[in-house]
């Protein structure tokens, strides 16, 4: 099943989502659905999308991430993309893809720090 390889755990008030290595379009679509439903059910304050296993990020995936972050924001939460690989970061910028309003973090640890921070640190 497509969304079986997306793992989702709730840690305190953060929704931790781990993406598999090479998500197909169906998996990526399922991601958005799953996140939003769980957000509603759990009233999480934030979502951490761990993409440390992802080797390629295409425009569909990027767009889905950006949209999901916007939707999460509308539901009162913040999204952090964690663990992007250097090669993926380079390709993403070269293709001119943006991740919308999603914040980024070096890894899940940092992402948790970001979401737990008492004062808002804006992106420079």
């Amino acid at each position, binding site marked *: 099943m497509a969304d079986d390889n997306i793992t989702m755990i709730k840690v305190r008030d953060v929704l931790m989502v781990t993406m598999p290595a090479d998500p197909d379009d169906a998996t990526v679509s399922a991601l958005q659905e799953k996140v939003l439903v769980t957000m509603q059910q759990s009233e999480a304050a934030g979502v951490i999308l761990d993409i440390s296993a992802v080797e390629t990020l295409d425009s569909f995936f990027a767009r889905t991430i950006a949209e999901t972050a916007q939707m999460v924001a509308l539901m009162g939460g913040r999204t*952090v*993309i*964690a663990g*992007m690989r*250097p*090669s*993926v*970061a*380079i390709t*993403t*910028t*070269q293709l001119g893809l943006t*991740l919308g309003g999603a*914040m*980024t*973090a*070096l*890894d899940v640890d*940092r*992402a948790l720090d*970001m979401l737990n921070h008492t004062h808002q640190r804006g*992106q*420079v």
Partner: protein
Amino acid sequence: MDTYVQSATVTMTEWEQRKRFVGFTDEDAQLLKELGPVADMYVDEVVEGLYRQFLSFDKTRAFFPDEATLRRVKKLQKAYFLQLTQGDYGEAYLVHRLHIGQVHQQIGLEPRWYMGAYSLYMQLAFPHVIAAFSHDAAKGQRVFLALLKIITLDKELAITTYIAASEAIISAQSREILEIATPVVQLWSGVVAAPLIGTLDSKRAQQFTERLLERIVEMRASVALVDITGVPMMDTRTAQYLLEAISAVRLLGAQVILTGVRPVIAQTLVHLGIDLSSVATRPSLEAGLRLGLDMLDLQVIHRDGKR
């Protein structure tokens, strides 16, 4: 460094093409062969005349520091001139001529001098050719034109190899420059500095970004100071590469502070309409570090309590 030994390969097809373009025909080859015995007679005089000219010019005299060198070169020159009239202008001739430009490039003799030498040869040979065919002026003209054509072909080959030899050196140097990578250093826990030195082309930009991102992951940095003090000039493309690098760093959750923005660079960036409003910039690495530490909620305090 023997990279310039790979001579420009002018194929036989191209050689034939060049001959056709210049209008060098089998008839010309035949005429030159007829000139052969005449050339044998005037060649010594022509060589002497040529070297008298070389020795009277500072720039060219420098290539013949002693008698032994002079004698050796005159011999080679004589052999060269005699080859012009031996009657066969195929592959062997081509290969032999291809070396000339290479040799000149190696010793540092620029094209303008040996181009001049070709002209001097023609001037010195002219009266002899005319005299030898005084019984048939029209033929004399055709012989001289044949000589002109073969000399033109020789010049072309010399220039081709000279350029190829120079280009080989340039490629080797470019490869070396690419290998000189400036290290990304950690200034503080969580703060790395990446100096950019020289001009950025697509390959260097890619290399720089890759290195920077890898180090950020490795050192778990959250602030990256990209210092452009060593970037001599800014243009749209360089700015583009910079912005791409900055975006990529952001995707890894780190913040970029662009430091070393010199007045002339600041001017250029504004004139080019580059939007850096989303990037923190500082004039020096020190100022950048200060901001970086601030971002990490760190403060440097003097022992006596002052900031």
